C-alpha cells in the first residue's frame, strides 16, 4: 500500500506498525525520534500498537541538541 514517509511516497506492506516502519526505514535510535501520523503526534507507548493505513502520512522528527551532545 502507498504511504508518505518523511514527505516521500513509499510502497509498504499492509499491517505494518510505527515500530516496524522505524526499523524498515533504518532509524538507528528510535528513542530519539518523535512520530507524527497524519499531523497528529503518536504517543511513544503506542508505537507498537499503531498500524499504518493506505495513504497515511508519517513523519519522523529527531531530537537535536547543539553540537556538544545531542543524538
Amino acid at each position: 500500500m502507498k504511504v508518505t514517509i518523511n514527505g516521500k511516497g513509499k510502497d509498504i506492506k499492509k499491517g505494518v506498525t510505527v515500530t516496524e516502519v522505524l526499523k524498515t526505514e533504518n532509524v538507528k535510535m528510535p528513542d530519539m525520534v518523535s512520530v507524527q501520523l497524519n499531523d497528529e503526534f503518536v504517543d511513544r507507548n503506542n508505537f507498537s500498537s499503531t498500524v499504518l493505513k493506505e495513504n497515511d502520512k508519517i513523519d519522523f522528527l529527531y531530537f537535536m541538541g547543539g553540537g556538544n551532545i545531542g543524538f
Partner: protein
Amino acid sequence: MDFSEDQIERYSRHIILSEVGVEGQEKLLNSKILIIGTGGLGAPAAMYLAAAGVGTLGLVDGDVVDLSNLQRQIIHQTKDVGKPKVQSGKETINKLNPDVNVITYNELVNSNNILDIIKDQDYDFIIDGTDNFPAKFLINDACVFSKKPFSNGGIIRFQGQLTTYIPDNGTPCYRCIFQSPPPANVVPSCREAGVLGVMGGIIGTLQATEALKYILKIGSNLAGYLLTYDAIKMEFRKIKVSKNKSCKVCGDHPTIKKLIDYKQAACDLKTEKSSK
C-alpha cells in the same frame, strides 16, 4: 527617535527595504532579544542581531571559551580562550555595533534563575541556542509560562532544525513535539556526535531571522512548523507540526505547573579523552 547620520548610513540597507524602513529600524533599536547559550547557534545569531541594530541583547552562558569552541562559535576568538563566553561575546558585539546595549548573565539557566532573567529586561523574543536537552525543555516551559515567543534550534553532525513558538497563537511548543528529554542511556557519546562548524551559522542565522521578522512584524514564521536542514543531501524540509492535546505544559490538561531541572550527564570531550 532621531537617527544620527552614522546610524542612517549604518542601517541604510535596512532602511531602503520597504518592509523595514526608518520605522522598522526604530523598532529594532527599541527591541530586546535574549540569547540563551552563546555557542554554535547563539554566536552567529548574536552577531547578526547586533549588526542589525537590536537595541538590547541579553547573553546567557555560564561557560568559558574553550579552544574546541572556535571551530564554530565565531563570536569568540583565539585570544578569548579561558574568558567567560558572555564577556567575550559582549566585547565582540561592542566592537561591531556601539548602538547595542549588551546585558550579560554569566550563569547557566536553571529553574531558579530563568524566569528572573527573562523578566529582567522584559525581553521581546528569546533565542534558544543551548546544546542540551534539559536546557531546551526548561526554556520551552519558561517561555510557555511567561508567554514569551522563542525560537528553538538544534544541530548535530550535518543536520539542523528549528521551530518557533508564539504564545496564545494555538501553535505547538517544543514539548508538543518532543514530550520529554530522551532517556540518558540512549543519548550517544560525544565520539558519535560532532558537528560541521557551519551548521550553527545556518540554523543560528535562521533563528535570528525569525527574531527580526517577529520584531518587524513581516512575513510568516515557523510557528507550527519544524524546518529541517540536511547538509549532506543539501535539502531543506518544512514539516507542519500540530499542537499536541496531551502536551504536559500547553495541552488540554497540563500537568507541569513548575519548571523542571532535568539531569543529563553532560558529555565532555576532554573528560572522555582523559578517561581513556
